[in-house]
């Protein structure tokens, strides 16, 4: 599984960081989401799915690769 953030869509809410702090962070200046672990596995996966669900900009996608 690969995590992709659509940066222009991201609204810097930080919801993904609350959902999956090991996988996401935010840029210092504009708060746009950063993917720390591009291919999360195991215990990280439920949090990543949560982040996709709660992102208020629908800016996070998971691909099966």
């Amino acid at each position, binding site marked *: 599984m690969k995590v992709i953030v659509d940066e222009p*869509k991201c*609204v*810097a*809410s*930080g*919801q993904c*960081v*609350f959902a999956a702090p090991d996988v996401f962070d*935010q*840029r*210092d*200046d*504009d*708060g746009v989401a950063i993917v720390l672990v591009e291919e999360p596995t195991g215990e990280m996966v439920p949090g990543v*799915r*949560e982040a996709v*669900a*709660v*992102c*208020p*900009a*629908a800016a996070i996608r998971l691909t099966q690769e």
Partner: protein
Amino acid sequence: MSQRAAQRVVVVGASAAGLATVEALRAAGHTGQITLVGEEAHTPYDRPPLSKHLLSGDWEPDRLALRPDDALNALDLDLRLATTAVAADITAHTVTLSDGAVLDYDALVIATGVRPRPLPGVDGHVIRTLDDALQLRSRLRPGTRVAVVGAGFLGAETAAVARSLGCRVTLVEPAPAPLSQALGDAVGNLVADLHRAHGVDLRTGVGVVSTSDGSLALSDGSSVEADLVVVAIGSLPNTEWLTGSGLTLADGVVCDHFCQAAPGVWAAGDVARWHNPLFDTTMRIEHRTNAAEQGTHVARNLLARPEDRRRFAPVPYFWSDQYGIRLQAYGYLRDHDEAVLLDADADIRRLLMGYRRGERLVGVLGVGLPPRQLRGWRAAIAGAMDWAEIGAVSDAV
């Protein structure tokens, strides 16, 4: 197993909350039939960009799709678009649709959202749907005289976009400053200055008395000549279809802290009024983030055994973009007892506000602040931080 009791789920409302509900149902392993009923002909799309990137022309409608078609198809929904629910019978467990269909349900999720509050006597543009926004967009041209009634977030964002497109904009607000009642005077003054600096003719403390042939008469005796009027004076929850159903309706569908309105009936998103235990108050939240969180939460509670249900206790979050400056807030700012400026730069272009209710911190709002910095406050709100501690935390965050 309650999974069996929730075999057939009907979700009324196919926007962010409804979509979050059906996705979370499938993610939790629900294999029973799910019907998703949507008033609009479009598949679920995102609303916040309607008054931002879509209105400005930066984005086209395809950019607003909440999920690609293949992801929607994978949810295996009985999707009924361009259809409304007209009645619910919570004893017989049925929902009647506008096309005459009667659906049996084991669980019903109400996510019918809100609609623009009308301004009596004024037939203006509104912005709730994609079609509304596209219609308005087609008329925003350089030099067009635009009158926006209501300087809440929607009206303020619309005014900002119209200015960026070269329109001549008048923004009319009955309160002394935009957003000041909800967010405090410092924020209201900042937003007012921002709009004036960008050439908006901001008229505060006045209402609209009447309209005729391209002219708005205001309560102070002045008038506004306009080629088009945008009405953005708040919203009304879509609950009329539930009148007489036996559900409690009071500015929304009234729910308990599990978001349950009656046995087998749940509500999520803008239309839901529920008791948030974190703030010990009932609230109805029209924020995009709440729609996703509450829909997800409802799906899980709906499938859980009663003893495993979890209370819905979120820290609300919202944002607004105006002239490239972002406002962001965590918490429940409405009904605060005091709004205090915690930090600001010299000319108050960037600021941090704290909101007190009783003896605790209930919210923070940042204007032009790095989002990462504001994020640190969420834990303090979730932890019901004592207002007296705010100075120490303010230094640390």
